[in-house]
Each structure stands twice: as structure tokens, then as C-alpha cells.
């Protein structure tokens, strides 16, 4: 039975302990917040939410989490579920910003530019390079890439969290890996686009 699944002792792709997920009653909102906040924050940032908007977006994610607590299956890992919500909030934020600009025909309000290749390649800026390469991916592929390559989620977990077929996850991941690799090479100036 799925509710009997245990994930104690497991680690994610970064070596961090997986959130303990066991049986019985779902975790409280406070527990989910305390254990999932950093994950939500990282996910939003990787999905392109700007630094200045991260607190607002994280707030929105947990408003939805609070609202959907009853939908959460404690037999499933928490991080992919949170990632799915963060993905939808990031998509909404992107639409909202676009509508906001279009409302008055304001054209010059593009997000703050990401660090340039030179900056990204400077010592200690590997993370900036990753984030800039992630921008080469549309949001639907980016979330799959982030969940698979950075969070260590499995394809079925991703499919479940995003509400798409597993085959779609695989196809998005295949394209995303290639585009990410191409973007890194391009940013490093090694190859033409």
C-alpha cells in the first residue's frame, strides 16, 4: 500500500536528507513550512523568479499549500508536491508581470538582466551560470529539469506533481538536458548557438 512507503534515511541529489514521509496523518502546515521553505525558495529561484519577488512568491506558494493540505498524500514525498505548486506560482507570476507591463504598453520593464557570461564564469559564479543557462528553457521543461537534475526526483514523482504523463516528463527532460548543455557551452563561448 502506498501509504506504507517509507523514505527515512534517503537523500536527494544534493545529499540532503529527504523529508521524512510516512503513513498516518499528514504533517501539519508548520512542519511542511519548516521543512519545505528552503526547497520552495530554491525552486522558485531556479524557475526564474527574481530575487526581489522571492518572498512574495514563497508566500503565495504556502498560501496554496495551506489551502491544499487536504490534497496532500503523506505517502508521497513532499518536495515534488511543493515543486509542482511552486511551478504554478512561478507561471502565474510570469503572466502577471507580463499583463502588468502590457496594461499600459510599457515595454522597457524587462526583468533585471542576468549576469553576463564574463560574470558568470568568474570564480564563485558557477551558480549564476547555471541560472542563466536555465533561462534557455521554457518553464515547463525547466521545472522538469530542476526536479530531476537538481532535486533528484524520479520521473513518476515529477509526472504526479505536475499532472502530466510520465512519457511527457521523459521527453521534456531529454530536450531540457540538451538545451541546458548547449546554453552552458554558448555562455562559455565555446560554441555558437
Amino acid at each position, binding site marked *: 500500500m502506498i501509504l506504507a512507503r517509507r523514505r527515512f534515511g534517503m537523500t536527494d*541529489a*544534493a*545529499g540532503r536528507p529527504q523529508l521524512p514521509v510516512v503513513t498516518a496523518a499528514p504533517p*501539519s*502546515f*508548520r512542519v511542511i*513550512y*519548516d521543512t519545505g*521553505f*528552503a*526547497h520552495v*525558495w*530554491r525552486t522558485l529561484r*531556479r524557475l526564474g523568479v527574481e530575487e*526581489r*519577488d*522571492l*518572498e*512574495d512568491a*514563497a*508566500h*503565495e506558494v*504556502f*498560501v*496554496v499549500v*495551506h*489551502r*491544499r493540505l*487536504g490534497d496532500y498524500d503523506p505517502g508521497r514525498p513532499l518536495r515534488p508536491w511543493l515543486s*509542482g505548486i511552486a511551478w*504554478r506560482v512561478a507561471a*502565474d*507570476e510570469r503572466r*502577471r*508581470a507580463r499583463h*502588468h*507591463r502590457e*496594461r*499600459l*504598453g*510599457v515595454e*522597457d*520593464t*524587462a*526583468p*533585471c538582466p542576468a549576469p553576463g557570461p564574463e560574470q558568470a564564469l568568474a570564480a564563485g559564479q*558557477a*551558480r549564476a551560470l*547555471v*541560472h542563466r543557462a536555465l533561462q534557455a528553457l521554457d518553464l515547463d521543461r525547466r521545472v522538469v529539469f530542476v526536479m530531476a*537534475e*537538481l532535486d533528484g526526483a524520479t520521473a513518476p514523482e515529477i509526472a504526479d506533481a505536475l*499532472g502530466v504523463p510520465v512519457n511527457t516528463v521523459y521527453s521534456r527532460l*531529454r530536450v531540457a*538536458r*540538451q538545451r*541546458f*548543455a*548547449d546554453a*552552458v557551452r554558448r555562455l562559455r563561448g565555446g560554441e555558437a548557438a
Partner: protein
Amino acid sequence: MGNPLEDQELQELLAVERADAGPDDGARARVWGRLAGTLAVPGAGGQAGPGGATPMAAAKVGGGLAVKVGLVVGLAAGGGAWVALRPGPASERPSVAPSVAPAIAPGTASAPSVPPSDASLAAERRLLIEAMQALRGGRLEAAEAALGRHAARFPAGRLGEERAALGVQVLAARGRVDEARAAADAFLARYPGSVLRATVEAAVQKP
């Protein structure tokens, strides 16, 4: 086809990103404080995480964000449609008091939404478009006059943020540099998360 990420340098890059520690405790406490003001969060009266700030104190910090659009509160069936609310300025929102009227409760079928457009919003928009077109056409006095009419007619209008941003641009275009910078500072203080931030900053950076 092999995995294009098998490249060692790519793996090293991804390893750096995986090790991202995430936000500081201050962010955790501030967001928790704002949640306490938005939801009937059980236990919201306690400490807000390792940061140590109480939710009440953190909410006051978060409240400084003033008008912020896009509080996503609902997920319609199928996970596709999101309901967005545009809350009023922080000063108009209820103070943090988890025991008072939760705005959202788990299991609520749907949340009301603010109508996206009505007559007064259309009137606001017309005035600001008039100002913007005048600004673009170099008719700076006309632009300033349109903004003045908007301010007089809609002192607490829903497009106050846009009016303020245009005001900075008009002042800068008229060469009133000090006033433009002061207005830009006021804008950034009032709307720190505005998507018009880059526009405002660019306006006062021009020579």
C-alpha cells in the same frame, strides 16, 4: 543518444547549484509572519523558525512591501486556472491577528476574485495612457497635466503605482533631476517589488 549532462564540467556546475543553501532565516521568518496575517495558521503565535523573529514582528516588515499584485489563492480543477487577488495597500489590510477572520481556509471551494476591469479602472487607464503618449511625444507639460488629473480624480486609484512610475519618467524628461530622484526613491520605497522598478531606475540614470 547519450546524456548531454555527462560532461564533467556540467556535472560540477550542477553540483554547485545542488549545494545551494537557500534563503537566510530572516526570509523564512518574514514569510511566516506574512502567512500569519493571511491565514489562520495554527501555531502562528510562536517563534518563526530559526530566525527568531516573531510572526507579528516579521509581518510588520513584510507589510512594508505595500501594494503587491498577484496573491495566488486558489487552484481550479485540473490545476490550470489560478485566481489572483489584488490586495490593497498594506495600510488597508487587516493587522496580523490569526484569531481574526482567516482570509483563506483549507478546503474552501473557491475564492472570490476582484473584477479585472470596470469603469473606474478604464478611466484610470485612459488618463495614464494619455500621459504616457504625451511623454513619448515629448509633450511633457501635457503628460504632467494628465498625471495631475489622475492624482486628483483617483488619489487612491488602482493604478497609483503606474502613475508614480510615469511621474518619475516625466520629471526626468523635464530635466528636474533632483525631483525625479526623490520621486524614484519614494517609488522604490513604496513599491520595492514593482515590475516597473527597472523603468524607474533607468529614468533617473539617464544623463
